[in-house]
């Protein structure tokens, strides 16, 4: 059996990739995907700990996280579309005013 710590390290690697993605890219869609990457790495840790502790609560959390992620993606992408409709750009550096 692979120790839980290994899974946590993998999760940390994926999480870091997501963080760097958010910091480096200026395309909000790719930033969004990086956030999904981070959420998923958290899910991996949840599932790994669920097995370690022999308790299913972690898996239920993952279920809820997925529902939240779905709602977040839908609204987030809707905001991107709305911004594009008014500004004709979605480069985050160009979006420096709070009104549109």
């Amino acid at each position, binding site marked *: 059996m692979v120790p839980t710590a290994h899974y946590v390290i993998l999760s940390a690697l994926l999480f870091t990739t997501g963080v760097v993605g958010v910091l480096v890219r200026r395309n909000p869609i790719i930033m969004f995907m990086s956030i999904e990457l981070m959420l998923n790495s958290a899910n991996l840790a949840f599932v790994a700990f669920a097995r370690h502790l022999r308790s299913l609560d972690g898996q239920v959390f993952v279920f809820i996280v*997925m*529902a939240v992620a*779905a*709602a977040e*993606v*839908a609204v987030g*992408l*809707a905001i991107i*579309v709305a911004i594009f409709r008014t500004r004709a750009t979605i480069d985050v550096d160009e979006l420096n005013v709070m009104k549109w």
Partner: protein
Amino acid sequence: MLSAYFPILVLIVLATGFALGALTLSHVLGPKRPNPAKSEPYECGMRPIGSARQRIPVRFYLIAMLFILFDIEIVFLYPWAIVFDHLGLFGLVEMIVFIAILVVGYVYVWRKGALEWE
């Protein structure tokens, strides 16, 4: 538990092997005589006008987004359905509350015309 999934792995290998094998085979066997007219994107014989990667109407996006939200609802129904016997009337009530809240959203979406396709 994991051993139950092993035959699926075998099937995945077979299916992937078949698909890629067939693609490669036809790539090897078929003639390769491209010319500009042949590799032009088909537009009823006309020279293609503009880029093909057009933007698609916002309707499609709205449909995909509503799909996600209702898909989550359905995903929640499956574990509920198989433990329904243990939950009894309580299970029915909690799901009625859940569905009722979502039906409010469904009616809103309908009334706002997001489901109309014009």
